[in-house]
């Protein structure tokens, strides 16, 4: 259970945040029409996840021991502030980068995957290193799922798709098939 490679691969593939836990569906279904955008959003999300994992660990270890009931509210505050802070940072350091992905940052705040990450890591009692590895795996898994769906959507843009199924219905069914494919990753770490 404390096995770092297991934590990483599990979050990335076996128990992918989007395809197994249904987290981060809003951007997954909404923003995945372009490969480029999806990749950028995925990277931004991974970064926010890393920061959140660290902050959550700090909170859990030093503050929330005395007030476990404040966990949810403090996580939300941390996530919102982190995103705000990163937005300001990017704006200052690289206006070009900000222009390229500025609109996505507020989207990340409402991404349930980040809150989900914080809550899962807390429930499983991950320490600092485990939390970071978990966030890395989860963020990359999210990016992977987004990029896969975006690629498929781009490919299908030129095909003749029946009107009935266009839109979210099709995206969900594609996601379902992707999810089935990812199920094949289970048992990747079968030892003995």
């Amino acid at each position, binding site marked *: 259970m404390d096995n770092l490679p297991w934590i990483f691969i599990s979050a990335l593939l076996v128990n992918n945040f989007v395809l197994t836990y249904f987290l981060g*569906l809003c951007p997954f279904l909404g923003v995945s029409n372009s490969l480029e955008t999806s990749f950028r959003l995925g990277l931004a999300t991974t970064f926010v996840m890393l920061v959140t994992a660290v902050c959550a660990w700090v909170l859990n270890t030093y503050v929330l021991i005395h007030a476990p009931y404040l966990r949810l509210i403090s996580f*939300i505050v941390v996530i919102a502030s982190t995103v705000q802070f990163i937005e300001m940072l990017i704006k200052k350091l690289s206006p070009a980068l900000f222009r390229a992905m500025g609109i996505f940052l507020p989207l990340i705040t409402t991404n349930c995957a980040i809150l989900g990450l914080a809550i899962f890591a807390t429930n499983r009692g991950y320490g600092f290193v485990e939390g970071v590895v978990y966030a890395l795996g989860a963020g990359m898994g999210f990016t992977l799922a987004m990029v896969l769906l975006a690629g498929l959507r781009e490919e299908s843009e030129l095909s003749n798709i029946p009107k009935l199924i266009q839109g979210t219905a099709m995206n969900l069914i594609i996601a379902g098939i992707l999810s089935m494919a990812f199920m094949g990753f289970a048992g990747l770490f079968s030892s003995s």
Partner: protein
Amino acid sequence: MKKNESYEEFVKGIWRDNPVFVQVLGMCPMLAVTNSAINAIAMGMASMFVLVGSSFLVSLFRNIIPKQVRISCFIIIIATFVTIADYTLLALVPGVHKELGAFIPLIVANCLILGRQEAFASRYPTRLAVMDALGMAGGFMLALFSLGAVREILGDGALFGFRLFSENFEPWIVMILPPGGFLTLGVILLFFNWFKYKKDEFLADVAEAERSGS
């Protein structure tokens, strides 16, 4: 007149503006708990509690909360109700709480609830806001239940734990696994698209007939 208004607000959430099927909102963290009918209903009730409570308070204080900090205030109110729901469930029905697990706190991230505060509760009087919340939550619960029921019936051969089919029924295990969630919702949305398509066709025909007819 007022009575009809309230009723309207309530009913629209159930079908016409159903949050999941029509607005395609709020299913983000919720698909995970639709692997059985009872889980779906439990989550639906928890969400209803949070939505109605938050809408009530937001509407009550809508004239006092400054516009600039309204989102933060909404989130504080919603998070409070979610925490209350979490602890209450843990105390009263630990079995259900274990099934729903980490997804109870994730109700906070349900875009439906925040969306309702922003779009409705913060602009309308309390009674209408509560009616709207009840309707939306009802529609949400209906959606969750349909997903949960289909997944449980096909994936487990049961409903609410009661065996429906004979021993020979080989359940489609994939339905209670994550892909089943995606596929079921996708197919249901497909049906909704079909209804809408047919309705639009019918209305177009009627308009055509009126134009060319008597």
